[in-house]
Structure formats: C-alpha cells, structure tokens
C-alpha cells in the first residue's frame, strides 16, 4: 500500500512499468505506417528516385502522446489507486454492523444505505469479514453469521425500510449469539442508527461494545423522523353548513429541537390533494396539532393523510371505509315475509342522504350481511319479533336505528322505540279540524340539531305522540311549537334508537320536503360514526388489501401477509406479519396504521462510553479509481484505433462518421445494458414446460395401477389427437393435487385434467381444493372418471361415493346428463355416446354455465376411458373394451378426441354457423 496524500495504490509495484515508457516512446516513433500497394504502368519512371526525396514517415507527436496516455492510464489503473483511503479504524478483524431499518430509518434512507455500503466496501477491500444485523424484525430470522463484504453488499442492496418499529432487543440477542460462536480478535462494530430510542437500544449498544469498539453513525444534525397520529374527525358546530373538523396531530422527538413547520396533506384515492394545512411544532415541543375544516363530502373523499416531503410509514395515515361514507341501510319492514312495496317511503331519505352516505336498500337480511352504521326503517311498521333480537343486538353493539312513524306505529308495536307511544295519533289542520298545522320549535340545546336553523314553512299535520314520562324531555331532540316531541332518541347499549314522529313522506308533514330534513339526517349519520368507530360489529377475517411500505407508499400485499381477525384489528400493532395498510373487503375496509400504536418518540441517548458518534457525512468515502482509469484507457485506445485508420487512409471518408458513432455506441452499450438488469423469472420447470407446449394432465391418484393407466391412456390420446386433428399436444403431465406447492397457477396451463377416481383416493387438502376451484372458474376443465363396473381396474364399487365427496367440495354448478345434441358429442366426431372401456356409465356435464360461455368445466363419467385408451410398450391395448371390442375402442378414442377438442375449443361447435353443415351430416 503506497500512499500519496489522498491517493493510495493497492498494487504500487505496477507503477514500475512506467520505466519502460521512454522505450515505448522510441518504438512508437519508429513504427512506419502501413504500405498501400498500387499497380502502376509507368513504374519505370519511379525507379531509383532521388534518395533525398525519401522522407521518413513519422507518427505525429500528438498521436504518440495519446498512446502514451493510454499506457499511463492503464498502468495507473492496474496499480489500483484508491482515493480518500481511510487510515483510521485500522483494526483488521471482523466488522459487525447493526443497521436500523425500522420505520424511523426511512428518513435519510439513501444516506443510511450509502453509509452502510461505504462501511461494507471498505471491509471488503481489506478482506475483513462482516456481519450485518438489521434491527427491524422480519418474518423469518436467520442466525447472524460472518460473511465476506461482497456477500453482505449483495444483501444490503435489497434492504428497505420496514413499516414497523425496530426490535433492538432481538438484534442484541442475535449479536450475542454471534459472539458466542466466536469472533476473531480485532473486531470492530458499527451501528447505523435511526436516532429513535426504544427499550432495546441500550442492550444493543452493550452487545456491540462487547464485540469490539463501537462507532455510531446517525443523522446527526439532520431532520428527525416525524409521526402522524390518526386524525380525529369530529362534527363541527361552528359552521352553518354541516362541516367536519379534522384534527391532525404530529409527533417528533421532543426536547432541544427548534420550531418547525410541517405540511400535512389530505389526499383522495387518486392522490389528489384534498386539503392541506401547516402544522407548527413549538420549540422543543414533541407534538403539534392543527385543524382542517371541510364539508363532509370532501372529508369523505380523503383516502390518506401524509406529511409533505416526509416519505415514511409513520407519517402516513390511511383512512378506511369507517372514515369515509357511512353505510346506511334503508330497510323495508317485512310483513309475513312479503316485502311491502313502500318504495315511496324511502325516496326522500335516499334523495337526502345519497350525496353524503352509502345508502343501501333492501330487506333486513341483505342489509345486515354487511356492517351498517345506520339503519333507517322508513315505513313505520312493526319490526317482526324474529328480527327484534337481531336489530336489538346490533343497536347494542353501536348501531344507530332511525325509525319513522306511520299509521301502524301508533301503539307500542315493539320494544325498539325510544319512548312509549300513546295509542292513536294526532292530526291538526285537517279538513275536519279547526286547528292549524304546527310548526317546529327551535331545537333544544342538548340536541345534536341544536345549531340548525328551523325554517318557518315546515309544518306538521300529523304525528304520533309519546306518553309523558320524566325523561321525555331529555330524550327529545326536536319538538313542535306546542311542546310535543318531533324527534326522540334513546341510548340502547352502545347505540341509539331514534324515532321521528312523522312519516318519511310529505303525507304527515312538510319536513321531508325541506332542507332541514337533509341536515337532520346527516347529523344523525354523523353521530353514528363515533359510535361505530369504537367497536366492530363485523366478525371474521380481514384479508390484506393494500399495504404501505416503509416509505409510506401503497403496495399490493405479498403472500406472507395474513388476514387479521376483524375484532382484533383495533388492537393490532404493525409487525412483519401484520404490516400497516388497508384490510378487509371493498366497502368495509379497516386501516391498520403504524402510528396508532407508536409510543412517544424519544431521542437515542448519547452512545455509551467509548463509542464514537458521527454523522453520515463523516463516513470516509473511499473511491476505487481502477475501473474509471481502465475505462478511460480503453476509450483512448479505441480512439487511437480510429485515428490510425484515418491516418493510413484505411478508413473511407464516408465511413469515418459512422465508425465514430459506432465507437460511441460500443462505449455506451454496456451502460445501456446495465441499466436494464435481466430478470430471470423463477418459474417451476413443470409449469414452464406446460406453458411452452400445450399438454393434457392427469391427477395423481396414489394408486400406481390407476396412474399407469391414466398416463398411458393420455399418451395414446395425445398421439391420436396430434395425428387426427390440428391440435399438436406434448406429452401429458402428472399433477399431484396432494403436493404441498399446488397452486392454481400450476394447474391453469393445462386445458384438461383427467382424474380417475380410485380406491387409493385421498381428499386433497383445502388449499388444493381452492386451487382446483379457481382452476375451474377460470376456464379449466376436469374429466372425472369413476368406473365402478365389476372387473374395472382400481375399482371396488365405491368410486362413486368418493366422487361425490370431491364434487361436494368443489364449486360446480348443477350437472345433468349429456344430451345427444350436446357440443361434447360433436366437437370433432359426431358421436351418439361417449364410450370408454365400458358403455354403461352415465356422463354428466354442467347444465349451463354463463361464466365459461356455456362450456362445461367438468365432465363426470364412469366409462373408464383411460383403460380403453391405454396401451403397453408394444402398442398393444391393455384392456379389452366391453362389450364392443375394437369397434368400441375406436369409439372411445373418438370420445377422448372430442373431449380434448371440447376443452380446447369450448362451445365453438355449438355456434349456429355450423348448424347447416352439422344438420346435413346428421340427417344423411
């Protein structure tokens, strides 16, 4: 190692080659250019020219300098010069690197990775083994081991910040485990830290220091991570229009930090900014809040909140369907199981709420299938006894039930009412009444409608009346001028029951015609949200829908992410198995946000005694100059080549420019190539083979005889199909449905899977059944063959039972016997039946399936086709066809070809275009 200030040479002895440069100079000077040969008649006149005229050909001096430059560059390059060679940290033992890649590391991620690369490259250059421990937990944890710097670099390239917190205690354990296996002396340790303290940070520092002197590299003096806590959306009372107040809250590492401004943006599903606000951290403050006021319709569009210029999972908050439009169910009470045609009743409600809520109508069963925030019963009837419990339970768990009065509600029809009602209604201002219609009084101060203005033209001509009770006033949210309640509400469990004492139609009052009606309904829906957000009435599993990565970007879920139980999602913290993101089916998604469960941020304490701490910039960046120098030498060499050709006139003038361009392209080509790394797809060879060449498949049965028959039978069928039809198939494949790695992707390449049911049959695992179902849904075809005839190979008379077992587990539409004119009977040959080894088996196909355009996804038979097809090695049929002999075997071949063609062409032959031709052949 030779060092000249900032420049060092790893192989300085090569520089001795520079001694040969003067010799090269002389040689270059003396080399004459190439001779051009010309035939010339007047050569006699050229003989013996005056020798003084013979000028020596000299290489131009600049060309010599160019060539020497090539040599010098090559020599320098081979001497392996290194810029900024780090002289500090001269320990030669292994380097253990702890690398924080939790959510907090997303800030300055580039700098972190560069620091890691610098550390690893330096170690690699000196041959020091390294071990990199990433502190964020992963789904699978492999034991830490020492590896070469090159290997570590390859894994370091794939590092990305995790959208969950680091677990330094676990990292410390891994370091300790490594230390136990024995680390050579002279080890040093580096911790590239994210600057956020957690419970295990002291432990990790101690573990690292136990291995060797510790250097902590972090974002010293740079901006620190920021957390955005889930915003709080509340109903605002300040504005006359029904508005929303959204309180956003940011957190950072408190103490000692100056005042700072951050911009919080609310984005909709298309990443358009809906609103933004500046949040100001006071000097030293750890949290800051700001308010966003906006109308409900706008607030409902918000899909996520993020902090401008902070790409981090913690600064990103997703809003789910609970945040957005409330699901409102508009139920029609059922009388004796008949749905009452009272659509008129729901019309005004739907008109009023449509723009603000997700209004669904239908009968109660349909509505209750999905989570509901509000259930509106507009037809003022009785709730059936059978449904009372169900609705009651729903209200108890936080639902908001809104009922409208009606002629049938005058008595206490059911317990789901907020107040006791008096028998009989009340009517004012009718044709037979002297009183005038009543108007609505100002809302009481305890009412959620309290700041709504009451228009003077809303009149009520009929209503139902509540029995006076002590708590009636408290339960009244709106009343008429004469003091009788218009809207009453009562808590039930965690939910509310609200009764509006008029109908939902203008029949009893002008309320449904007024703007007040809209406002009141929206208030009611707004109330429901808070209740709904706290508890979850849904049960079951919420599959991941969209996840956010460490930079706060939405990504599709990977295979490792499992579903979360619906009741647990509020309590679930972000972790490798439950990354933050949206879970659940469309329309009922729940957000799992990282920041929900984050503790208050604390700064990483000063490193323990003996540890040095530096910022990213302080990491010495060594630069290897060898590739650059050698590349420059090569470029100059190529240039010299072109120049020499030009000088010797070997290059036609017209070719000079293209040659130069070609040269430039040659130089640029490796870069272009490098920019586009080849992606080798990791495809199962069997699947690859099935994709490249179309082939049939048979399901492995676990019965060797049956498998042999199926294999041989399909091989013969494949040969016949290739010989007789335009379909060129390859050797049939074997599909093991009991294999662990069975997926729908592994089945989809096969147009047809032949499955012979045998005594050795085992029910495939649920995963395989799911794959098989998906295969059938996406256009695959399975031929089930369950021969039960006496004497059939691998038959014990119970194959039909087994077949039933499978079919019960598969999602197959109703099947029926193959009709004579079914497409299957005429896809290639015109057949009357589809015999196999036997002729008496029933053959069933789907009655009609619109998903696959009328093509049956299954053919269920018992004719033992494969036995009829199968041949031995000498090409002799294995089993006699009963009773028809060879004629029947030929029919069986034709049946097989028809099935293959049916799988390949679907209902093509059912097309009426072919009808005349088919009819002609059928009638002749």
């Amino acid at each position, binding site marked *: 190692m030779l060092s000249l200030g900032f420049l060092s040479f790893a192989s300085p002895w090569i520089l001795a080659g520079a001694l040969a440069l003067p010799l090269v100079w002389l040689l270059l000077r003396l080399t004459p250019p190439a001779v051009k040969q010309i035939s010339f008649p007047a*050569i*006699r*006149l050229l003989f013996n020219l005056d020798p003084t005229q013979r000028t020596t050909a000299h290489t131009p001096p600049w060309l010599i300098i160019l060539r020497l430059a090539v040599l010098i560059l090559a020599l320098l390059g081979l001497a392996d010069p290194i810029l900024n060679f780090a002289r500090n940290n001269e320990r030669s033992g292994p380097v253990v690197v702890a690398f924080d890649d939790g959510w907090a590391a997303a800030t300055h991620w580039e700098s972190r990775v560069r620091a890691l690369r610098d550390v690893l490259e330096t170690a690699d250059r000196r041959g020091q083994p390294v071990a990199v421990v990433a502190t964020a937990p992963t789904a699978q944890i492999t034991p830490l081991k020492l590896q070469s710097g090159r290997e570590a670099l390859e894994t370091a390239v794939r590092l990305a910040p995790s959208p969950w917190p680091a677990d330094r205690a676990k990292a410390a354990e891994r370091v300790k485990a490594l230390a136990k296996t024995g680390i050579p002396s002279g080890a040093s340790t580096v911790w590239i830290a994210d600057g956020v303290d957690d419970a295990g940070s002291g432990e990790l520092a101690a573990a690292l220091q136990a291995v060797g002197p510790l250097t902590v590299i972090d974002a010293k003096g740079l901006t620190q991570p920021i957390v955005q806590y889930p915003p709080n959306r509340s109903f605002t009372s300040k504005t006359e229009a029904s508005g929303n107040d959204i309180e956003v809250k940011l957190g950072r590492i408190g103490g000692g930090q100056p005042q700072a401004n951050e911009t919080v943006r609310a984005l909709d599903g298309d990443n358009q900014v809906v609103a933004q606000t500046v949040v100001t951290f006071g000097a030293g403050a750890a949290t800051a809040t700001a308010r966003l006021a906006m109308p409900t319709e706008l607030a409902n569009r918000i899909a996520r909140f993020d902090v401008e210029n902070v790409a981090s999972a913690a600064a990103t908050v997703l809003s789910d369907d609970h945040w957005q439009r409330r699901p409102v169910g508009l139920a029609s009470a059922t009388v004796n199981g008949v749905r009452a045609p009272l659509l008129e009743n729901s019309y005004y409600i739907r008109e009023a709420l449509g723009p603000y809520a997700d209004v669904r109508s239908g009968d109660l069963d349909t509505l209750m299938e999905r989570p509901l925030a509000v259930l509106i019963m507009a037809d003022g009837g009785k709730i059936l006894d059978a449904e009372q419990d169900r609705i009651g339970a729903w209200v108890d768990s936080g639902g908001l039930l809104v009922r409208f009065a009606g002629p049938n509600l005058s008595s206490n029809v059911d317990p789901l009412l907020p107040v006791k009602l008096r028998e009989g209604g009340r009517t004012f201002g009718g044709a037979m009444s002297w009183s005038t219609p009543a108007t609505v009084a100002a809302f009481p101060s305890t009412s959620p409608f309290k700041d709504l203005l009451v228009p003077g033209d809303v009149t009520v001509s009929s209503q139902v009346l509540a029995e006076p009770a002590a708590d009636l006033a408290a339960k009244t949210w709106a009343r008429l001028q004469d003091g009788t309640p218009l809207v009453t509400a009562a808590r039930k469990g965690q939910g509310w029951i609200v009764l509006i004492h008029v109908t939902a139609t203008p029949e009893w009052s002008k309320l449904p015609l007024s703007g007040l009606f809209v406002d009141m309904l929206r208030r009611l829906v707004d109330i429901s949200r808070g209740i709904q957000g706290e508890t979850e009435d849904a049960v079951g599993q919420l599959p991941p829908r969209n996840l956010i990565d460490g930079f706060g970007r939405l990504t599709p879920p990977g295979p490792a992410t499992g579903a979360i139980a619906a009741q647990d999602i509020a309590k679930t913290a972000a972790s490798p198995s439950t990354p933050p993101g949206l879970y659940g089916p469309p329309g009922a998604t729940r957000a799992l946000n990282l920041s929900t469960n984050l503790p208050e941020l604390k700064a990483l304490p000063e490193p323990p005694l003996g540890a040095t701490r530096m910022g990213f910039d302080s990491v010495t960046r060594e630069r290897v100059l060898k590739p650059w120098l050698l590349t420059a030498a090569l470029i100059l060499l190529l240039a010299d080549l072109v120049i020499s050709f030009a000088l010797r006139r070997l290059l036609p003038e017209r070719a000079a420019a293209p040659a130069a361009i070609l040269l430039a392209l040659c130089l640029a080509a490796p870069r272009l190539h490098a920019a586009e790394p080849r992606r080798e797809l990791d495809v199962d060879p069997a699947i690859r083979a099935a994709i490249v060449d179309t082939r049939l498949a048979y399901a492995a049965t676990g019965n060797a005889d049956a498998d042999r028959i199926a294999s041989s039978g399909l091989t013969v069928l494949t040969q016949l199909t290739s010989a007789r039809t335009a379909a060129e198939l390859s050797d049939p494949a074997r599909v093991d449905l009991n294999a662990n790695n069975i997926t729908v992707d592994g089945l989809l390449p096969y147009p047809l899977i032949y499955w012979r049911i045998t005594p050795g049959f085992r029910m495939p695992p649920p995963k395989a059944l799911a794959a098989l179902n998906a295969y059938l849904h996406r256009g695959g075809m399975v031929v089930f063959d369950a021969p039960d005839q006496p004497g059939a190979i691998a038959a014990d008379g119970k194959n039909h039972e087994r077949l039933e077992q499978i079919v019960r587990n598969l999602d197959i539409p109703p099947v029926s016997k193959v009709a004579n004119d079914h497409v299957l009977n005429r896809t290639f040959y015109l057949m009357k039946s589809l015999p196999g080894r036997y002729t008496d088996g029933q053959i069933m196909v789907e009655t009609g399936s619109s998903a696959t355009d009328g093509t049956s996804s299954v053919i269920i038979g018992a004719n033992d086709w494969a036995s009829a097809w199968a041949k031995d090695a000498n090409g002799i049929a294995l089993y006699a066809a009963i009773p028809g002999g060879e004629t029947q075997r030929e029919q069986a071949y034709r049946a097989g070809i028809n099935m293959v063609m049916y799988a390949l062409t679907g209902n093509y032959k059912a097309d009426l275009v072919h009808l005349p031709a088919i009819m002609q052949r059928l009638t002749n």
Partner: protein
Amino acid sequence: MALNAATRRDESHRLRAQADVIAAALPPLPVPTRRPATVTALGSHGRRRAGVGDSFWQFRPYSTDDTPQSIDWRQSGKVDQIYVREREWVTSQTAVLWCDTSPSMRYRSDAKFPAKAERAAVMTLAIAQLLIDGGERIVRVTGDGRQQRAASAGRLAVGQMADAIAAELLEEKPAKVPEVPRFDSLPRNAAMVLFSDFLGPLDDIGGMVRAVAHKGIVGHMMQILDPAEESLPFEGRVRFVGMENEGATVIDRTEDARAQYMERLAAHRAGLKALAAAAGWTFAVHHTGNSPQLAVAALHNAITGHRR
C-alpha cells in the same frame, strides 16, 4: 481459352460501335502516297502507267502478243491501224495498324476512365474504318510483331479486326509479348499508325522506330496515357508494382515524389518526340480522360497532311 464467344462478340460490337461514332464524323482517309507499294491490288492510287484499272490511259498499236479481246474496235475502225486500249494502272496503299494490348495498357486509375487498351482499340478501329472508306488496305500487326491473318479491305476487314482486338482484350492472361515489339515483316513503303503508351525503355522504342522507318514506312505514334500516369495523384507510403514484371518499388511519401516523376515523364516524352522527328514520323498524346473524337480527328489531319 475459356473465353465465351458471345462475350467476345459483344465486346467487339461495343468497340466497333464506339469507333463508328467517331469515324462517322470524319471524311474517308486515303493515305497520301510517297512511293506506292508494289502490291498488285486495286486501289485508288493511279500509277501513271498502263495496267489494271478503270480509267483510260492510252491507245497503242496492237502487237502480236496482245489478246484479241483487248483490241478497241471503235478506235481501230477510224483508222487502218489496229489499236489496243490501255487503262491506267491503279493500286491501293497499305496502312499498318498497331494497337498495343499488353498488360500495362489494361491499366485504368479510376472506374470512370476506360482502360488505355480499350481506348486504343476504339481509336484503331475508327482509323481502320476511315482507311477502308478511303479505299486503302489495312494490316494489323500484333504485339509479337506478326501480321493479323484477316481480310485487308472492305467492311469485313474492320469487323474481323474488331473481333481479334476484342479477343486480345478479353484474355485473362495476356500473351507474353515483348515490352517493345519488333516489327519484322512489314510491307515496304506503307503507312503505319501506332497506338501505345510508349512507356518502355526509350532505347528499345528508338530501335523499333528506326527499323520500321528503314522500310520506308511513315509512322504516326499516338501515346495513350491514363490521367493518373500524367499526374501521379497518390499520397502516402505506396508500394508500386509494375504490370509487366518490371519489379516493384516503395515510395514513402508519394506526394513528395510527384514533381520528380512528372519531370521524368516530360523527359521521356521529349525523347519520344525526338525519335519521331528523326524518322520523319508524327507523335501525339492522348489521355483516356479526354474524348477520343478529337484525338482521331487530329490523327486524321496528321496522316492526310503528312507529305514529305
């Protein structure tokens, strides 16, 4: 000879077509007679004595050795004497043509120029045509000094000459001929037209000229050169190879040798001119870059105007 007869015929027709274009623009070319050759062939040259011919020469008294058919009865009827009608003896002059087809004549510096030999052939055929039109006999001698065995008069002669020259031009490996041919068997007192580059040794050319002139033959030398031979337009380090086994030489900077070459070429040409003048011949230079029409016209003038 692997030569395709059809190719040869095409080449012959091509050469003749070019020659005909040139000849059509010029009047027929009778060779001025200094001393007619003693050839007993009919021609246009009256010998001013009685002999075979068309025009009347004299009446003379019948002698016993005359045939009765030669008696001119009309003249004899006027007087008592019997006369015999004699006609003027008319002979033709013979012109000898030499078209050099040696390897060095195959040279051309650029595809836009014809080979020197091709140009020589076209000019030879044009002159031959003009001579035939002028009633002369033509004889072609080849590079090895032999006379071409062919018709010597009439249109057929030109055609046969074209065929022969085309055959020579198309030969892949030209017959080995001396650089400067020796013309031994030439008719005496003929006219001769020589088409060559005359780049051989000056002494050899001088010997040839003197030997031919000694037979009373008047020669017209046409030096045909490629423009590159005139200016030596090459540059850089070049190895020049002779086309007739003269050897090779390497010149490092051809551009520097150019001046010296042109000097030597001028000296060589001056020597040729001196040779021609000494033998009473004419000498002209033609470059393949120029039109052959003018050169043939100049040659026509030189031949008709040449009287001693």
